[in-house]
């Protein structure tokens, strides 16, 4: 069995976000980049399935040169090989165009049984790219999995999915795509030997010339940013002025009464 994990490199959660001079993107120079925290759960799930079934785990990302670090992190956790889609023509694509490119590459790989992804990319605040990939590949999907059981014999996956107000159990025929919920497992830390080994694992670089647009119903000219459905006009850093009224809590009764009153009469919120 072959499992592919779609991953994303994102700014570190501690990174301070500042707009670039054009005002439509962020300053990326001083930012530390990490494997998207939600993707760690997907990589861990793939590695756990591999440990039970001898599956092979491929890690795929789209991004500039530095994005290879996200792949290496996933390989250090136990992935077997990487696919790094990088081309200047692929920078700043929207989700539609990204899914086209990723879908085309997965189609070309041909023999993927299961695709896993994290529930959300913390940079884009978006969960849609993997699901658009599922549509490109015409395969079934389950989202927000809190449990995944793969049955290689019947080529199915039984998935417990979080839904509004509860959960449900779904059986998917493979190949299928599953996004995993945070907490489905405890992602392992990459060990030092794991990191050393990851450096030697194969990582294929894929450029625009390697993607066959015909196969995914997109013309050469539309492949990349020109296939995008929308563009970023501006990015602003929200500034909310807070009133900073902090009450001394030495007299608890007095302080609590005062706060309740402020919330009722000034903020008019309770």
């Amino acid at each position: 069995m072959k499992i592919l994990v779609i991953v994303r490199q994102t700014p570190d959660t501690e990174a301070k976000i500042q707009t670039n001079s054009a005002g439509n993107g962020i300053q990326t120079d001083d930012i530390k980049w990490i494997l998207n925290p939600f993707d760690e759960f997907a990589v861990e799930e793939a590695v756990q399935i591999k440990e039970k079934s001898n599956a092979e785990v491929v890690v795929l990302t789209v991004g500039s040169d530095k994005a290879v670090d996200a792949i290496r992190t996933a390989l250090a956790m136990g992935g077997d090989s990487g696919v790094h889609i990088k081309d200047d023509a692929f920078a700043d694509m929207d989700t539609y165009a990204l899914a086209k490119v990723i879908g085309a590459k997965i189609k070309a790989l041909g023999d993927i049984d299961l695709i896993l992804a994290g529930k959300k990319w913390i940079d884009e605040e978006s969960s849609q790219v993997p699901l658009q990939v599922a549509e490109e590949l015409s395969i079934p999907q389950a989202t927000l999995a809190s449990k995944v059981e793969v049955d290689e014999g019947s080529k199915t996956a039984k998935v417990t999915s979080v839904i509004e107000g509860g959960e449900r159990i779904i059986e998917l025929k493979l190949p299928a795509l599953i996004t995993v919920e945070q907490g489905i497992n405890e992602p392992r830390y990459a060990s030092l030997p794991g990191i050393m080994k990851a450096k030697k694992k194969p990582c294929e670089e894929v450029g625009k010339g390697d993607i066959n647009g015909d196969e995914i119903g997109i013309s050469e000219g539309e492949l990349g940013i020109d296939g995008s459905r929308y563009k970023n006009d501006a990015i602003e850093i929200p500034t909310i002025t807070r009133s900073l009224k902090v009450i001394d809590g030495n007299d608890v009764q007095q302080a609590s009464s005062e706060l309740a009153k402020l919330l009722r009469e000034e903020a008019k919120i309770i």
Partner: protein
Amino acid sequence: MSEILVLVDKAQDTVRNVTYEVLAAALKLKEKNGASISAVYIGDNAGSIESDLGKYGADKVYKIENPSLKDFNPSLYAHALSELVNKVNADIILGGNTLQNQDFLPRVASKTKGGLTTDAIDIDLTSSSTLQVKRYKYSGKSIATLSYHDVKPMIATIRLNAYKPVEAGAAGEAVSESIDIPADDNFKVIETNIIPKERPELTEADKIVSGGRGMANGENFKLCYDLADSVGAGAGASRAAVDSGWVPYEMQVGQTGKVVSPNLYIAVGISGSVQHYAGMGSSKVIVAINKDPDAPIFQKCDYGICGDLFDVLPALTDEIKKLG
């Protein structure tokens, strides 16, 4: 005339409020471009929803009813909506940012060659009549403005509580749409379990009380729950509390948890890290309760009490109950 489709979110027999919020967003666009607004129901039994939907702005209600749409199946729902889009030539599709819409609309975008953005906090039309969306990026750390190219359909989900329902008119005209739904052997729902929740879902809650490291253990969260229940709030937690195993992951607020923007957010025993703030910094009013006067949260709140949360929480709960 161009048409705006609004997805109907129905639980049991009632249309959920989020649908009326999205209709309010659609009305904003209608004022500018004069488009007609059509609500779209997908499922097995619509019932008489047209009077309620009409009241909040739907000119028309498409009902796509089919027994095989009883259980939500993203491929089949995407098929149903995409077929309708092809039939009626809709320019814009709007829905609430619900889990179900986040699940199947990506497939609709790819099927129809349309564009999709999720969790808009505001929408508008550009001078060239394409959709423009404001949404958070990098969690709550930045707000992006995106505009669609000349594509159809332009699809967006709207953040819950971002718009207030507006009463706008009479009953909508009901239109039954028969769309063939193919069999799907690749996706089978075995079991659905609705788990009764004691408090509002975090992403929908108007008020939230969250506990952090200062709670010291899981049992102490009862103090947070008591305060939450006194104001009808949802209950959240910081990453530290979740990672310590005190409360479940689904309660985590922050950049690696849920991103929320309630009208009132009470942070209890939470220092206020960058990551936590990224998940709740857009709340309208922030209240902090912490015994450390140097906690960063006191630099980012509207109101606060610097004191021991184990004394403050019961006292504050009492005071709020007294106000009635």
